[in-house]
């Protein structure tokens, strides 16, 4: 775009059309939340929020989304490292597969999980025979569904950061006698730190809001598999006040995390 030297000067006055269109875009994010806020039963809010449906769902959502993030750290970061640093055939395919859950409707992901990890599934059947662990309709099933849908955010961000990292820094540290562990701890991690944290936040936020894969794979039972999004969905048809209160909880928690972390790490994206 910069080839035509005159372009830079013309943008001094803000182009009205773009500002108008941009504002329409902004309104698409703002209006739904205003609509939600208008429905909040403020006077009954404390009682509604204290009900066991809400507290069970909030606790379950917190536990499962944090566990999914932890699992993503343990297996997702090594995967990101493999994709960034190992030269192997089929790497584009691997990257495609990792990105797939971002594009797929979560319901499809949930169905795929059911066919693979259900008790009649490809892996699930032997898993149950070997360990007695049955994933569908269990809290572990929610964690697995959350991880499946959310982990790509961590893998993709960390992989990008590792690829952009100038490996000469690591090489220099190693040549000065640093062990692999020291290089990782003192050079690699600090340099990809901001991306890592951004990836973690995105992963957690995606897991916290997961709906489709969870209800398809893990079902819906209060206290066991009914996370906040599921509770909202069910309550919408029975108890509007609870549904709106639950939605408010989700908006507040998500917004608090995203805004709170923004100042320190978000810029990395």
């Amino acid at each position: 775009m910069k080839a035509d030297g005159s372009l830079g000067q013309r943008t001094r006055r803000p182009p009205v059309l773009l500002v108008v269109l941009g504002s329409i875009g902004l309104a698409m994010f703002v209006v739904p939340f205003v609509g939600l806020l208008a429905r909040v039963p403020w006077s009954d809010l404390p009682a509604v929020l204290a009900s066991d449906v809400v507290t069970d769902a909030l606790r379950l959502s917190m536990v499962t989304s944090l566990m999914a993030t932890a699992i993503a750290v343990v297996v997702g970061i090594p995967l990101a490292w493999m994709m960034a640093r190992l030269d192997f055939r089929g790497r584009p395919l691997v990257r495609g597969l990792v990105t797939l859950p971002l594009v797929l409707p979560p319901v499809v992901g949930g169905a795929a999980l059911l066919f693979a990890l259900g008790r009649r599934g490809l892996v699930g059947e032997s898993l149950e025979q070997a360990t007695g662990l049955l994933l569908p309709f269990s809290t572990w099933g929610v964690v697995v569904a959350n991880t499946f849908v959310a982990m790509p955010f961590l893998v993709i961000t960390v992989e990008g950061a590792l690829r952009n990292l100038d490996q000469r820094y690591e090489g220099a540290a190693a040549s000065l006698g640093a062990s692999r562990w020291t290089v990782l701890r003192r050079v690699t991690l600090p340099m990809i730190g901001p991306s890592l944290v951004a990836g973690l936040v995105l992963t957690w936020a995606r897991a916290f809001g997961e709906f489709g894969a969870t209800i398809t794979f893990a079902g819906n039972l209060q206290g066991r598999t009914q996370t906040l999004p599921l509770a909202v969905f069910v309550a919408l048809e029975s108890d509007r006040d609870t549904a709106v209160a639950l939605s408010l909880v989700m908006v507040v928690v998500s917004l608090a995390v995203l805004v709170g972390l923004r100042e320190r790490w978000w810029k990395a994206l």
Partner: protein
Amino acid sequence: MNSAARLLVATFVLGAVTACSGSSVEGELLVSAAASLTDAFAGMESAFEDANPDFDVVLNLGSSSALREQILEGAPADVFASANSSNMDQVAEAGEISGEAKIFATNSLQIAVPTGNPAEVTSLEDFAREELLIGLCAEDVPCGDLGRQALAKAGVIPSIDTNEPDVRALLTKIEAGELDAGITYVTDVLSASGSVEGLEIPAEMNIVAEYPIATLAGAPNPDAAVVWVEFVLSEKGQAILTSYGFRSP
């Protein structure tokens, strides 16, 4: 404005124009129907479109309670076919239907188990067995409400593992063999025959579900709505419903 921005604007405007012309198709009929009517109304749709080639029937399927909420929130629909009266009544009380709701079909409950009945379920009593994976429809969905009524009549406190959002979601998990048993309609078991087996629930515990249909006050296409309801109530419409396991009221 640089060329990328121009392209963006052009795409946007083009998209908006296409979207507008797309929504002005004439003779579109929006039918919001209970999930348990999925197959029967699909059959009804092709018969109706054969008879009325100018109409394009669009089925919006979901749990009756979800459809009720959509209508009450102002989502456009011409016809509402509910799996129970309470959802229809709420829509009627809100002044959202035009004319009277009419019962057009009845349905009854069955226990659905995966083919081969691996958990050897025989009656509603088995729904109390904790070692089994038991699914019901969510409490506010008609099949969930009726299923719970049947269990209450049988004096069984079920050990539920999941409350599915609609009867089709429940059926899918039974078909996949992930649930040992659930309560669905006779018609659902029929539609999934081969992958699901139905066990009769004795008449004294069974609940007959009555399906009301009505044209909606906010119908974008009120004339077509009336024609559709007449078709559903007609001999031909009733024959189609019967072929899917429903009964005439």
